[in-house]
């Protein structure tokens, strides 16, 4: 009899959890999710970085450039904090940061830049043509503008969420705090 009560209680608890409104992602969700366009670029860790190699992990995919002064430092700091807050489950999370500025973002420069935020973050660079193809596949905007003696690049600032099966599941707009990433990553890692 007590076992029956236990089963009923578990079912009721499960129903409450399922109805929990927080079960909705904070990020924008694609329905249906398509397979994230694959790419292979030169990785900041010295070897090639291929997106599909991260199947089984959750990937947060960001686009930017190391000379960015406004958007990228904030986005990467937020992602680093989220990964830290995730503690052990952060090991199932991979941040991939693809440059929109191959002329300045060499492998070494990206490695040093990303190490300031989290040594596990991986940068991807390549030729202008390779990177343009990646941007087109994800609908990323990157437009040069004159700044000082050089140039800046206005670029899409959202972060794509690729699930464990390689599905392009969601997109987190710029400005969300680390807690929102932690919330969504935990939910997606449970599934």
């Amino acid at each position: 009899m007590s076992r029956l009560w236990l089963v009923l209680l578990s079912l009721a608890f499960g129903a409450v959890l399922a109805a929990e409104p927080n079960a909705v992602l904070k990020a924008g969700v694609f329905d249906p999710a398509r397979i994230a366009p694959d790419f292979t670029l030169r990785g900041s860790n010295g070897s090639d970085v291929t997106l599909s190699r991260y199947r089984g992990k959750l990937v947060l995919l960001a686009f930017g450039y190391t000379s960015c002064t406004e958007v990228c430092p904030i986005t990467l700091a937020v992602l680093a904090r989220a990964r830290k807050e995730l503690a052990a489950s952060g090991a199932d999370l991979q941040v991939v940061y693809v440059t929109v500025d191959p002329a300045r973002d060499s492998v070494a420069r990206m490695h040093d830049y990303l190490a300031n935020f989290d040594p596990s973050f991986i940068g991807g660079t390549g030729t202008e043509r390779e990177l343009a193809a990646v941007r087109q596949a994800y609908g990323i905007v990157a437009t040069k503008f004159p700044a000082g003696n050089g140039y800046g690049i206005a670029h899409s600032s959202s972060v794509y969420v690729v699930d464990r099966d390689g599905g392009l599941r969601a997109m987190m707009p710029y400005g969300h705090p680390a807690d929102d990433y932690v919330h969504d990553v935990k939910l997606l890692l449970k599934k």
Partner: protein
Amino acid sequence: MIARRRLWLWSAAAAAVLALSLWASLTPVAVGSRDEIFEIPKGTWARRMAGDKVEILPSTIRLTLGIRDILVLVNRDDVPQIFGPVLMMPGQSFRLPFGVASRYQFACTAHASGQMTVIVDEMPATPWARLLWRMGTLLRSGRWP
């Protein structure tokens, strides 16, 4: 006699406006769905190729927390489309909830400015704010919330 009748009519009209204003300010705003939906209809790409200037997504979208705070984009066309800040496949939808009142800027190639703005307002909590919000929504969208 006519003056008295006119006075009565004006008084009735004023009473009706007052009653409506009281209702609009005191009744909490309740909606069936919090989705603000924009759809790319089938054939949009073909129309654009034929030279039609098709604008679906306004450059500024106004949402209100707790009332209409989920932006839903749907691509019903046969080809991929850049819709607001996202690239969407045919038949795909994108559902973006907003939890903080603020002004959000998105890069968007669909607009001449290259930007799309989403303004998210606080939920109108006081009677005066509710009245203003209802009137503003009526003027902007032509529908009584």
